[in-house]
């Protein structure tokens, strides 16, 4: 190996760049040139280190030394001291906020310990189309161990002891679910994998199926062994073509080498898996609706009980689990229930994958132990809010959940705390909103989704949600009255109490939680007829500040409806009766003369 050259890594994450990181990078290059080192030492821009509060961050290789809060003026000292003389610049060394210790190596960073990958352990690591690669990364080892050394009851006990709770939304204890399915005797039983990920903004199930399909197949077989079922079904939406293709390949390969099918690993256990396609209806994530859809019937829910564990697919006992839940199974078997139960909080064990979306810098998938705070997720792992704007709220649980606000930033995220905060875990979509988002419009957006996705079977959901949506539409158009707010709340509570399935029971959550947390914003809409965030078109007016207007006519030329008039070099005027509020004039104006009122 050649002797490693020195390299300076500068964080190029949005937060560090905005914080003079770019000037720092230029200065480092200039300093190196001044010392004729530009060909020996390279300066490289990296992605976010996740240490945004301490940025800009500089890391120097070899040695992995990390400097924090580096200003452009520090470039000279770093080059003259560290690069040329090999002496660390003590005052800039990164200090860990928790241990208060000065860190030398990146490996000791606490932020790196914030994420732990159990579900995503092999995603992006193995070749999903090669069963050999999966086997090399421990796939099917847990199945082998279970089939040869454990009784079904032992497996159920391990899963129960691990404290694993269903990752699809409700958080029902998985071990208990398996136990009930095991207890119901029948000639035929089914294991169903719910891969109908319908929550907008969540894509962890897709990622697991695309990156590590064997993890799900193996766990389904383990579940089959525990509940004494010999058939598995994966219900997946046809909109996930890549996940479907990789699942098919994986099932075929597992069949070819005898890891699925008859007499698996010579133990006499038979298990087969089939794929069933969904058309992407949100309600089919509800287990009874999902089962009906698989039977070829309309995807509509039915009353529970009977629960699927008693009478599910074709009237036989059926165990339905979500993809992410299944992905936790083999690590639990291989490492033991105790290991898993030590991760996370007291009542929510293990990790949770979140799909970060919205106004956050690092959109994507993260996996953190339960009990990680929202602040850590958004500001440390997610790199903070886009364009340095202010955090306003984060929606968890998608259209069935609620929003968390600034006061919830330091609440540890787990199943129970989210419910206490008026939201829910859901499948783990986390949509981040900043100061520019209007919470009334956000509630309206999620309701629009549930109105469209309601199956129409029960009246509270079909009619109630439609009425709720109309009320919100009214409010955002400036036609609301203060009494509407109470009407919203009452109607929401009635829909929650009287709907048939989880979709209707949770659909008013976004309205209730925004009403609770952002009542002033609703009041501004119905009393002052103003949208504080400037999002509701009908509640705003474009206005030219005559003191700033130089009369360049740029706005008048770009206006598509001819609403702007005025003489050259004289202040212009917008006629509010003609203006369609497209905002084109505001974008064009170079003098900040156009404002929204």
């Amino acid at each position, binding site marked *: 190996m050649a002797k490693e050259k020195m390299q300076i890594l500068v964080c190029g994450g949005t937060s560090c760049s905005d914080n003079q990181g770019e000037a720092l990078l230029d200065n480092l290059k200039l300093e190196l040139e001044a010392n004729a080192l530009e060909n020996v030492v390279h300066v490289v821009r990296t992605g*976010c280190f996740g240490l945004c509060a301490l940025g800009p961050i500089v890391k120097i290789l070899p040695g992995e030394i990390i400097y924090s809060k580096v200003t452009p003026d520090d470039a000279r000292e770093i080059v003259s001291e560290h690069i040329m003389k090999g002496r660390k610049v003590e005052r800039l060394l990164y200090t860990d906020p928790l241990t208060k210790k000065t860190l030398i190596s990146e490996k000791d960073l606490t932020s790196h310990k914030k994420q732990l*990958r159990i579900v995503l352990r092999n995603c*992006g690591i193995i070749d999903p189309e090669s069963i050999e690669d999966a086997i090399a990364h421990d796939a099917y080892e847990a199945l082998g161990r279970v089939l040869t050394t454990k009784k079904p009851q032992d497996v159920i006990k391990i899963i129960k002891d691990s404290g694993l709770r269903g990752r699809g939304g409700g958080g029902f204890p998985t071990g208990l679910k398996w136990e009930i399915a095991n207890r119901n005797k029948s000639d035929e039983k089914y294991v169903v994998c719910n891969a109908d990920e319908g929550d907008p903004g969540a894509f962890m199930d897709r990622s697991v199926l695309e990156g590590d399909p064997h993890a799900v197949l193996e766990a389904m077989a383990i579940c089959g062994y525990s509940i004494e079922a010999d058939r598995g079904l994966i219900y997946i939406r046809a909109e996930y073509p890549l996940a479907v293709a990789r699942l098919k390949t994986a099932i075929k390969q597992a069949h070819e080498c005898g890891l699925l099918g008859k007499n698996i690993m010579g133990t006499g256990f038979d298990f087969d898996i089939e794929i069933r396609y969904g058309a992407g209806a949100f309600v089919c994530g509800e287990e009874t609706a999902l089962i009906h859809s698989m039977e070829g019937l309309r995807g509509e829910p039915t009353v529970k009980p009977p629960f699927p564990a008693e009478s599910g697919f074709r009237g036989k006992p059926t165990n339905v689990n979500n993809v992410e839940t299944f992905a936790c199974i083999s690590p639990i078997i291989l490492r033991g229930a105790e290991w898993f139960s030590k991760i996370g909080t007291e009542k929510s064990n293990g990790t949770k994958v979140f799909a970060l979306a919205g106004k956050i810098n690092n959109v994507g998938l993260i996996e953190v132990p339960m009990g990680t705070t929202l602040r850590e997720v958004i500001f440390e792992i997610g790199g903070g809010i886009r364009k340095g704007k202010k955090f306003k709220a984060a929606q968890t649980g998608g259209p069935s959940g609620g929003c968390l606000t600034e006061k919830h930033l330091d609440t540890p995220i787990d199943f129970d705390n989210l419910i206490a905060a008026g939201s829910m875990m859901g499948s783990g979509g986390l949509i981040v909103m900043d100061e520019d988002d209007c919470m009334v419009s956000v509630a309206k957006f999620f309701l629009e989704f549930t109105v469209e996705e309601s199956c129409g079977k029960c009246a509270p959901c079909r009619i109630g949600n439609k009425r709720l949506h109309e009320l919100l539409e009214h409010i955002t158009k400036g036609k609301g009255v203060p009494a509407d707010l109470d009407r919203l709340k009452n109607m929401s509570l009635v829909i929650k109490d009287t709907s048939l399935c989880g979709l209707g029971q949770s659909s008013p959550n976004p309205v209730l939680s925004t009403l609770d947390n952002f009542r002033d914003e609703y009041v501004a809409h119905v009393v002052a007829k103003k949208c504080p965030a400037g999002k509701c078109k009908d509640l705003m007016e474009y206005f030219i500040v005559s003191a700033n207007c130089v009369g360049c006519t740029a706005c008048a030329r770009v206006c598509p409806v001819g609403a702007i008039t005025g003489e050259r070099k004289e202040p212009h005027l917008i006629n509010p009766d003609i203006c369609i509020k497209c905002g084109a004039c505001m974008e064009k104006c170079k003098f900040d003369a156009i404002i929204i009122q």
Partner: protein
Amino acid sequence: MKLIKSPADLKQIKKEVLESKYGKEKMRVRVHMGTSGLASGAKEIFDFFKVELEKRSIDASVVSAGDLGYSFAEPTIEVKRPNENSVVIGNVDKLRADEIIEKYIKNGELVDGILPTNYQPLI
């Protein structure tokens, strides 16, 4: 692949694959090709590495995998130089891919766009 008739067979295969695929340190480029990656052009990058590495006579394997979850920086690739820690690089286009081959793969010189690892793997 041959039939696995017992957990011992499984162990044997695991051992063989680990030896043949991961035993000898070799230059490896892994392109993350899940939906997010592919939508951002990962297939093009995968083909580029396949063709260009051969053209430039560099002995390396180019493999595919699912997404790492870094949707904000797709397409992402991971490069592993023999006996060194692997490096993940984001926002790879053909221009950067070329730079990666010329600078990092050939000389070990880092390039812009490195994504620091921000998680603990399950070991």
